[in-house]
């Protein structure tokens, strides 16, 4: 007897993307809703009838009405699929709260996993969920699975949300041996937004639509195939994300390094669905920095979004830079004063202000004379 299903988690529907321009934030928010449709289409394409969601289906325990209704409608329309939704730390189940609302309007093919009790998904397949009922339960919610009795020969699938390592002093992590202790054939986890295999039976699926610049594997769902009780499951990732969130680190010390940036960021991709975070380091002159800025502007115009972090990139006015401003005159004097101020500044903010003023002077002087300094 075998069983195939889709393991996904951390949809965090309704999540705002306030750090982005409003239009893009709207698109990113809509993408998280639309990924439900992508998951449905993927499952249908794979001939899979069950999708289990390991928590954090919604981003907030009090999401907007349309944020609740629209995904449920998408799930309802995918009639061939049974959706198994479990609350996580972002959307814990509290009586009278979000899940009570959902229970009233959920389509028949959606099952809410609100209690830590075994649920028979199909004949011989039992799901053991560990739903969150508060934001800080203070216990390993999956512990009950160890004692959960199921019919002999059943496939036991555990579903839990949280870290296997605790990053907070008062948080109790999930036992990373839970699959073994509870005799689970597969333990589907949520909370970690990248895809991660904990052991041969324990997996984090990651979020199906990325939401931040982190260099891990994300934007996919897992197809899980359990051939029978005690068998090692086969796990196959499938990409579902609309947007790609790139994290690029680059050291630039000369204009010759600039071309490499474009390759790293764009490659063969279509920039319209790429958001990138570029962290720069190195050392450039003012004129080189101006060239770099123009280069980056050109790249940024092709992307949905480009976040440039240049605190590690040193920009200093070289003698050539200053000479380009002339041998004398007020511009040269002002530039030298600003350079001195930047070099002698005791506070970082003061240094940045002086450098920025120098950069502006360099830009304006270039515009004023019509030449690049």
């Amino acid at each position, binding site marked *: 007897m075998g069983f195939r299903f889709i393991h996904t988690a951390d949809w965090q529907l*309704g*999540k*705002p*993307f*306030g*750090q982005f321009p409003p239009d893009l*934030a709207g698109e990113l928010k809509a993408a998280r809703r639309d990924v439900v449709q992508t998951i449905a289409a993927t499952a249908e394409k794979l001939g899979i009838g069950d999708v289990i969601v390991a928590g954090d289906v919604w*981003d*907030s*325990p*009090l*999401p*907007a*009405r349309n*944020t*609740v209704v629209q995904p449920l409608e998408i799930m309802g329309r995918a009639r061939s699929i049974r959706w198994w939704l479990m609350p996580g730390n972002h959307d814990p189940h*509290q*009586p*009278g*709260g*979000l899940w*009570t*609302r959902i229970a009233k309007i959920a389509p028949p093919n959606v099952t809410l996993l609100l209690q830590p009790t075994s649920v028979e998904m199909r004949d011989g397949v039992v799901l053991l969920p560990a739903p969150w009922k508060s934001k800080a339960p203070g216990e390993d919610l999956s512990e009950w699975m160890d004692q959960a009795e199921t019919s002999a020969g059943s496939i036991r699938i555990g579903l839990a949300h949280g870290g296997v390592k605790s990053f907070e002093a008062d948080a109790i992590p999930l036992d990373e041996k839970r699959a073994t202790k509870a005799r689970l054939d597969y333990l589907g986890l949520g909370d970690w937004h990248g895809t991660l295999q904990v052991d041969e039976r324990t997996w984090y699926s990651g979020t199906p639509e990325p939401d931040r610049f982190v260099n891990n594997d994300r934007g996919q769902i897992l197809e899980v195939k359990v051939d029978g009780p005690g068998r090692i499951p086969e796990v196959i990732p499938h990409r579902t994300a609309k947007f790609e969130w790139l994290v690029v680190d680059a050291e630039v010390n000369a204009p010759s390094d600039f071309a490499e940036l474009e390759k790293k960021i764009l490659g063969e991709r279509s920039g319209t669905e790429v958001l990138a975070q570029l962290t720069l380091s190195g050392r450039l002159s003012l004129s080189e920095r101006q060239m770099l800025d123009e280069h980056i502007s050109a790249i940024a115009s092709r992307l949905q979004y480009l976040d440039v972090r240049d605190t590690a990139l040193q920009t200093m006015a070289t003698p050539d830079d200053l000479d380009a*401003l*002339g*041998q*004398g*005159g*007020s*511009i*040269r*004097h*002002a*530039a030298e*004063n*600003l350079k001195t*101020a930047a070099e002698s500044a005791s506070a970082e903010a003061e240094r*940045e*202000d*002086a450098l*920025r*003023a*120098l*950069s*502006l*002077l360099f830009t*304006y*002087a270039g*515009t*004023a*004379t019509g030449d690049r300094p």
Partner: protein
Amino acid sequence: MKLSAIRLRNIRGFGPEGLAIEHIPDGLSVLARPNEFGKSTLFDALRLVFGTKHSAGGLAVKALVPWANTGTPEVEVDIHAAGRTFRVSKRYLKGKSAQVTDLVSGDIVAKGSDADAWLMDASGVSSGTGGPTGFLWVKQGRSMEQPAGGEPVLSQLLEQEVGLLVGGEAARSVLERAIGERAKWLTGKTRKPTGRYKEALEARAPTQDKLSTLKARQIKAENALSELQTLKRQITKQSDPERDREFKQKRDQAADELEAAKQAANELQILEQKTEFASTNLDHARSTEKHHADKVKEADRLAIAIKQSSGHAAELSRSHAEFSKTLSVAENELIEAEDVWKTIAQRNRARETFENALRAHNTLEQLENKRDQARALDDALRARAKAIAQNRATETAYNTAADCDRNVSLAKARIEGGRPTIHFDLTADGTDSVRLNETPVRNGQTESLSGTSVIDLGHLGAITISATDHGEARDALENAELALQNALEELGVRDVAEAEAKARERIDLQRASQHDRQRLEQLAPDGLEALDQEIAVLRTQLPEDFDPDTPPPPPVDIAEAEAAVEKARATAENYREAHADAEKEWIKHRTRTSMNEDALANIDKELGEAEARSQKAIQLAEHVEANWKTLEALNTELETKRSALPNLDMCTENVARMNRAFEANQQGLQKLKIERARLEAEIDAAGADGIGEALNEVNADLARLDRRIGRYEADIRALDRLIDALSDAQARLQEAYFKPVTDAMQPLLREVVGPGTVRLGVDFQADSLRRGDFREAIDTLSGGTREQISVLSRLAFGRLMAQRGTPIPVILDDALVYCDDDRLDAMFTALNVAAKDVQCIVLTCHQRAFSQLGGEPLDPQRWKKP
């Protein structure tokens, strides 16, 4: 560039014949012509050809067309530039054209717009600003204005001088750009946020408010969720059926205990009633026993008292009889003393009555006397009043008559005074022969004449004298006499003397009347009638038979009789009181004895004989003993039952508490359910509004706003730094920057205003003059000095440009009009000094004053075009 000739036609006052000035020298030249010659037209034509493209057709060009519209406006200049001589010809409007010709080679250098561009390039003039001509050429009426408009050219010139390849104009441009960029975020002077920075700052507060509201709602919703869980647990607990069953069982048990307690309490109550009854019986028996014993004792006491009182009664009776006798004697003595007193008092009252009547009689006589006098006065007053009424010579009327009389006398005197008087001084012969109105006159006679008088002089003839007719005086006399007559008739007299006598008589009567009235008021202040009434009253007070002459009864002393009466009365009163006391004591004794006898009789009747009394005492003692035993038995039983009785209050309260608890539990459950519904509604509402999601979004909005604000503020800080750095650098370089100009100006300035330094501002305009330790703002200087500095600045700029190889002539149109004679001479010298380097063309209408200038006179001619 230098001008060597200028020609123009069909511009304003210059028609087709036009005007041509040839052979303009390189140094100083002057065109001195009277007003209306057209010097300003010449000036404007120069600006037109240098500063306006030939294709231009604006109002400025059209304004140059003559009224008669004699043809196409045309200007031609010959210039030396770059070591060559060119002719620039421009025609405007209809037939527009432009051409530059090399006069040496005869080649056409440029045509059309190329010719415009060539000229602008050669002269440094740009369209719009006018280039150097804008400040080197002084238009009529603008000589006091400081040079303006040539900054770009001068900047370039001066930057080259101080070796700045990038600086001046570029620095200004950068500074303006930086200020402009900052102005996007901050206003100029007050540095108030503006633009998107302001929008972001203004958007922050409402976003923060929104965030706070949403946070509060979220907390409320979370609390509601938490409360809801607690509530649900409470409801479940309170709705537990097993708990209900246990509770009901306890309540029933308590009710049974209460019922048993009530039964026991009833029984105890009955026993208490019995005990109380027995106690009452014992009290009654004891009371009866005591009553019997008390009665026996009382009978014994009464018998002894009755026996003792019989002797005391006889003694009291004797004492009473003695007091009665003494009292009778004292009362008789009092009656006798009172009779004596009454006789004396009657005699004294008769004397008092007589004296009162005598006083009334005397008063009556006085009043009657007053009344008689008063009546006489009253009659006299009435008679005088009648006389006064008949006498019409009042003071006013008399004065009127007297005034009229004086007027008559005055009128007569006037007439009399107007008559001629003649005095005769006659000789002896004349004494007989001279006659006046046929009456002989004598020597020394004087006559007053009236009407016509004839003086007969005998054989010498006669003199007829006609006195002047005083018609006006006569009329006045007649009027006065008529008025006097009327006044006298009014008074009823014949003349003024009689009027005066009558007026005096009237005054006398009035004075007498006033005297009598005062007297009458003294005699009868309230009037005659009141006096009569007072007399009538007094008369009634006199006895009818009163005779004042009868002697009154003699007085008798009554004091002794009064003392005798008082003494007798006191004695009688003392005896009366002693008698009453004796009688009261006797009656009291008799009453007490009688009461004791009655009481003893009653007791004897109740108790019977002595033997019966003893037997009853024994019976009563036995009855008391029996009742006491009954009560003792009942008390013992009562104590036993009381100690066994359950606490009824406790049982009752226990049942009530159970009932209240049950009721409260039900109500509490109901309240919890209502609260649950409210919380569910609240949570539903929060969920429906998507509070959590909205909160996340607003949080994100706020973070975005803060990032925006942070970026703007970083920009502002950087721009501030940049602006400060540039401004500081400019200020420090300014002195060096302007040094060539001020150096060029210095010798000219010394020549005109003496030792001093002009400071130039960033706009190249002179902003102050320093002389010695004092710096004066240009605006505060006199018009003449300002004009001189203005012209000197231009000369300095012009010299500098010439020295740097880009000469442009300085043209002054009617400048130096505010100079005094000394300064004008100095300015002429300065012009001559400057003209060694730069071509200077002076246009003036002050021919005589400028004859001292020393420049080469220009000779305008008609333009004879080949």
